[in-house]
């Protein structure tokens, strides 16, 4: 953008062919990852709803499913896989690291670990 650009004027014109191709691809990826996320969510609910699966297996299983889902959200829906997101990744994963320590600390301090 040149310095003459007026930021409050509506943008004109069509996206380039290259952009359009990229967006079509992105749309396909997003929809596929959404379907996969719905599948994972349903799987987690079914695991808990069925009485035959012991909770010793079910709890770690649904936690893994949740982690996979969250990583998919972050990298496909929130575009953390794109170029130029280095610092965004640093901040988020630092936050996750501190949050993990906080969770472990609080559980040890105020609760009895029982999974």
């Amino acid at each position: 953008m040149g310095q003459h650009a007026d930021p409050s004027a509506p943008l004109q014109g069509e996206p380039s062919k290259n952009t359009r191709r990229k967006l079509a691809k992105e749309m396909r990826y997003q929809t596929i990852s959404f379907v996969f996320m719905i599948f994972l969510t349903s799987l987690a609910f079914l695991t808990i709803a069925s009485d035959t699966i012991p909770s010793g297996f079910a709890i770690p299983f649904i936690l893994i499913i949740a982690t996979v889902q969250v990583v998919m959200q972050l990298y496909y829906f929130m575009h953390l896989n794109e170029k130029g997101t280095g610092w965004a990744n640093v901040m988020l994963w630092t936050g996750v690291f501190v949050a993990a320590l906080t969770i472990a600390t609080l559980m040890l301090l105020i609760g009895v670990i029982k999974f």
Partner: protein
Amino acid sequence: MAHAEEVKHDQTLPPNPETATLEGKNKFLGFWFFLGGETVLFGSLFGTYLGLRNGVADGPTPAELFHLDLVFIMTMLLLTSSLTSVFAMIAMKKGNFKGLMLWMWVTVILGLGFLGFEIYEFVIYVNQYELGFTTSAFSSAFYTLVGTHGAHVTFGILWIITLLIRYRKAGITLTNAPKFYVASLYWHFIDVVWVFIFTVVYLMGIGG
């Protein structure tokens, strides 16, 4: 006039209008700093809940309270609203202002549906199960964690509605593209937190 030509040339749609200006880039980066902090906030609430969830005193237990069908509907509403806000962003990058507005409104409506179910759930807990905020350590931790998430949903809805009304006739500009983009990031983050809430609070409350 050559100058006018140049201005017109600069208003063509860039591939990523949300980060085409320095302000947009800064908004994007600053927002991720904020989300890192939000992660820690929710981490502390999750830690508290996990520490206190067995302390039900004489009140109802999680297994008595939670119903999978209600939580499943709420989850589907929120997951779908995440997808519709992705569609809104794709419409924005295509220069399709109507599509952006439409998908954002759909996102808001799905979010309102989620919030309605959450309020209904809390009303049932308070009235039928007599689970007040001070009933037990579990109830305090539960209402604080899930309630904070609900407050984030409420704030996100108000935020997006404000943008939709403020820019209802503006078209896509270099000023509002980053704002819509950051609002949609916030919405995805709400969804990310919910994935852990339905897993750790509801599913683990019923199954373990």
